[in-house]
């Protein structure tokens, strides 16, 4: 591992570009933003290439005692690496997606997105609890501006709701963080990960973190800010919100709540399972009834995130790995779906599903991509959605067959609302004149769709590329949770595992452990 501070550089490039965007003209701002995000993406790729799978848990660590009470400490493990990659991959696409759609105050817009990128990278690579909190909370400010300035008609309500809702959750987490620092005497995350908090205290800390992360996630019943925020946000805002910001909650679950409070996690897992089950069924049904495309996808996000939470709290290798893959897959696919909505919204300026129909005739390329992402969202084998959902549901089944049963209905309902959406928008008669006049994808839109589609397929066909860096970290978390883990009700009796691929072994090994306990 070279001593080159690549993480600091990744934080600095978008931050500096953001300042620059404020002072140069609109035209230049677009190019600067695109250049900076692409540069950050290249840096991310270099980092991925350099990442030593199976090496030290924390890599690319940097540490500087700048702030006295807490430190400027950065470092990533496999999970953080993947989520950073997701962020830096989506960012240039978001900039491209708003290339023509944003006409007013472009400099400020680009600056906000670049600040957002810095913050997202910072959240995932912070190794100091306070530094993490600062990044975590800071994300509110640029998103507030993005929704409030460039959003739809009801943008102000949505911006306020987003800001206050998530702030209210976060502040409770701050109190918990203060208590943790007082108890453990350090702000260093790797140390805290192995610190055993008293069980009684864990419960309170867990609840405080849960209050914050459940809102970010968002889990039912505190998800109501999400549809509003998505509907009102500009396309790229929705892409980044669904693509990365929703992952902050799940990241907090697996980074903090589960390894730091294993006993409380085990005690209170029924809350997570209960809320997840309700969310999967309820929000899927709500999605089915939507007439606004963005709202539909927003509710589907809540349902997908519920499978993530259930998968994480299965406390076993498949469940957690599956949840992580859903996070990545949903990051790509939901961003793509929001972009699909954005494409036709730019042409017709409405998100009403009924205003469309028959797009397959005059926009075949668009219909193809939309189909692919719809299938990926449903979880068709061969697409990214399948891998994650299958793995996590298998993991959940081990923990509780009932939860698995209820969550699986989400897949069926997911297929129902997505296919219904697809049918109404893309198939049917092409009767409306203004819809007839809509041209197919432009070169710019192709450039955005193609990489998203490629990644969705790559993740579906060869998920090992994404799973490999995370596997070791998941094993660490599972080991940390093992003493507290309750017995599952599935009583799986594992057959004799053949000494096959490494992945098969670990999966069977942990399922065996789950069955025996």
């Amino acid at each position, binding site marked *: 591992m070279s001593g080159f501070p690549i993480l600091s550089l990744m934080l600095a490039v978008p931050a500096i570009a953001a300042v620059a965007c404020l002072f140069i003209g609109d035209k230049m701002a677009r190019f600067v933003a695109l250049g900076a995000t692409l540069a950050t993406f290249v840096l991310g790729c270099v980092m991925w290439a350099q990442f030593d799978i199976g090496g030290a848990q924390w890599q690319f660590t940097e540490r500087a005692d700048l702030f006295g009470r807490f430190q400027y400490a950065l470092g990533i493990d496999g999970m953080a690496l993947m989520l950073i990659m997701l962020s830096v991959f989506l960012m240039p696409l978001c900039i491209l997606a708003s290339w023509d759609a944003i006409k007013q*105050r472009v400099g400020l817009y680009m600056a906000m997105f670049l600040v957002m990128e810095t913050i997202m990278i910072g959240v995932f690579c912070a190794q100091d609890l*306070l530094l993490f909190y600062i990044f975590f909370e800071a994300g509110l*400010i640029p998103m507030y501006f993005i929704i409030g300035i460039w959003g739809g008609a009801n943008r102000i309500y949505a911006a*306020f709701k987003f800001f206050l809702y998530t702030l*209210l959750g976060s502040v409770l987490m701050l109190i918990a963080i203060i208590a943790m620092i007082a108890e453990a005497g350090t702000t260093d995350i790797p140390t805290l990960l192995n610190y055993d908090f008293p069980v009684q205290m864990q419960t309170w800390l867990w609840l405080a973190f849960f209050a914050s992360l459940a809102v970010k996630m968002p889990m039912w019943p505190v998800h109501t800010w999400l549809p509003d925020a998505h509907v009102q946000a500009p396309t790229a805002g929705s892409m980044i919100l669904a693509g990365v910001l929703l992952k902050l909650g799940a990241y907090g679950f697996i980074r903090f709540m589960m390894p730091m409070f294993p006993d409380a996690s085990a005690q209170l897992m029924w809350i997570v399972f209960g809320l997840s089950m309700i969310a999967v069924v309820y929000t899927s049904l709500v999605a089915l009834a939507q007439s606004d495309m963005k709202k539909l996808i927003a509710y589907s996000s809540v349902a997908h995130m519920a499978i993530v939470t259930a998968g994480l709290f299965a406390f076993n290798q498949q469940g957690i790995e599956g949840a992580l893959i859903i996070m990545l897959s949903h990051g790509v696919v939901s961003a793509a779906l929001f972009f699909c909505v954005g494409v036709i919204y730019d042409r017709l300026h409405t998100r009403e599903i009924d205003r469309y129909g028959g797009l397959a005739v005059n926009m075949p390329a668009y219909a193809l991509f939309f189909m692919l992402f719809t299938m990926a969202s449903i979880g068709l084998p061969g697409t990214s959605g399948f891998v994650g959902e299958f793995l996590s549901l298998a993991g959940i089944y081990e923990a509780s067959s009932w939860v698995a049963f209820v969550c699986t209905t989400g897949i069926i309902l997911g297929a129902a609302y997505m296919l219904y959406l697809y049918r109404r928008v893309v198939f049917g008669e092409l009767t409306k004149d203004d819809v007839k006049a809509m041209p197919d994808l432009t070169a710019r839109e192709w450039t955005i769709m193609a990489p998203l589609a490629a990644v969705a397929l790559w993740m579906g066909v060869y998920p090992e590329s994404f799973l490999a860096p995370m596997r070791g970290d998941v094993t660490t978390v599972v080991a940390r949770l093992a003493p507290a883990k309750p017995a599952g009700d599935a009583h799986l009796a594992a057959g004799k595992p053949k000494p096959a691929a490494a992945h098969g072994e670990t999966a069977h090994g942990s399922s065996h452990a789950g069955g025996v306990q």
Partner: protein
Amino acid sequence: MTADLMLIWPELILTIGGLITLMLGTFFGDRNVGLYQLSSLLTLAAAAAAVVALFGIETTVFSGTLSVDSFGGFAKLLIYAASFVCIVIAPRFFNGGMRAEYPTLILFAALGMGIMASSRDLMTLYVGLELNSLAAYVLASFMRTDERSTEAGLKYFVLGALASGMLLYGISLLYGFTGTTDFAGIAKVLGGELNIGLIFGIVFVLAGLGFKISAVPFHMWTPDVYEGAPTPVTTFFATAPKVAAMALMTRVVIDAMGPAVGAWQQIIIFLSLASIILGAVGAIGQKNIKRLLAYSSINNVGFMLVGLAAGTQQGVEGVLTYLLVYMLTTLGAFLVVLQLRDADGNQVESIPALAGLSQRRPGLAAAMAVFLFSLAGIPPLFGFWPKYLVFEAAVNANLVPLAVAGIVASVIGAFYYIAIIKTMYFDDKSDTEFPKGGGAIVEDAVITASALWLSVIGYLFIPVLAVLSASAAAVLF
């Protein structure tokens, strides 16, 4: 005696400088703004230099009635800095109506505040407080032909006199039941059994001081006075006297009442929560930016009291850091308000008129957004850090319910801050034009510097701040 005088150089310099400034004004006329402004600024700079020179000396003077220590020094530096800025910004605001009394009164107020911050006897406490208050009453009504300004002065005077009365009543009770006016002596008696007289004394003293820091329920005067007083004076009220009164309150609570934790802590907790909540709720409907900042100051005082309620050294460190950051933020915010002038050069104070400010004056709007997010305590802006410190102190002092209630109420506060940002950034341009220009370079420099410092740069100063506030707070323990 002479030895004592050598230790109160800052006070001596301010007294002499104040008199010289007054004389200059009298002999050379009010037109010579530069002259008396310069003399007052030099006085403040010299006084600040004297404070720095005396840093590290921990002793008492004049038979233990006044202390010379780094706690007082810390507070005085903040007070002098705020006074300095308030003198610098005045001439342009008064636009020819500037008189030599303005810097003179500020100098005397600063003198009184310095005494407040370093008093360790009920008598010096009262002398300092009244010296500051009397100057402040006059300053509030400085634009004597302006109806709102005179109203503000009168209101401030009547309510201030009432508060002084309560304070004096409390002082007399404390003196009567302890037999001394010395903080250390009072603490000794309070360490024993408390009788009803002592408790009444504590309550009345805290009520009187609560008025000065404008904590709820003694806050009624604040919005009216802030709105009515000339903006540079409001800037002054929102910064320097807050620092002085908060320092005084800290000293009284920790030094004089320290042992009677049970008696004062619940009062402070009540003042704190009431201020946070009422400061936040009251601000929501405001249409005048100065009134709104008044409620914001009430709200922020509530957070400072969270640190004080902890009653620990960590808590006092938090209060001191909070004061510094709050002062810089408030100075910045009021300087922005000062720059808000329409095409005819009139001050604009109405919040709806700020609509679309970000498109007319992007720099100014950005600075204001930084100040407001910072006042709301949203990271990464530096306003987060002092809030973190006071809450940390409260949690470590086993006041978790207070911390939780306070931090949840802070979300209500965030609402009105982001509502102004909404007005400036999301709304369409209002009819009011905000032409550039005329602003002194100093104002722009102060705004830019404090906005930059309050964005992420401030975090780099945490080690320095920690050392300073720790050495200041250690004096009280």
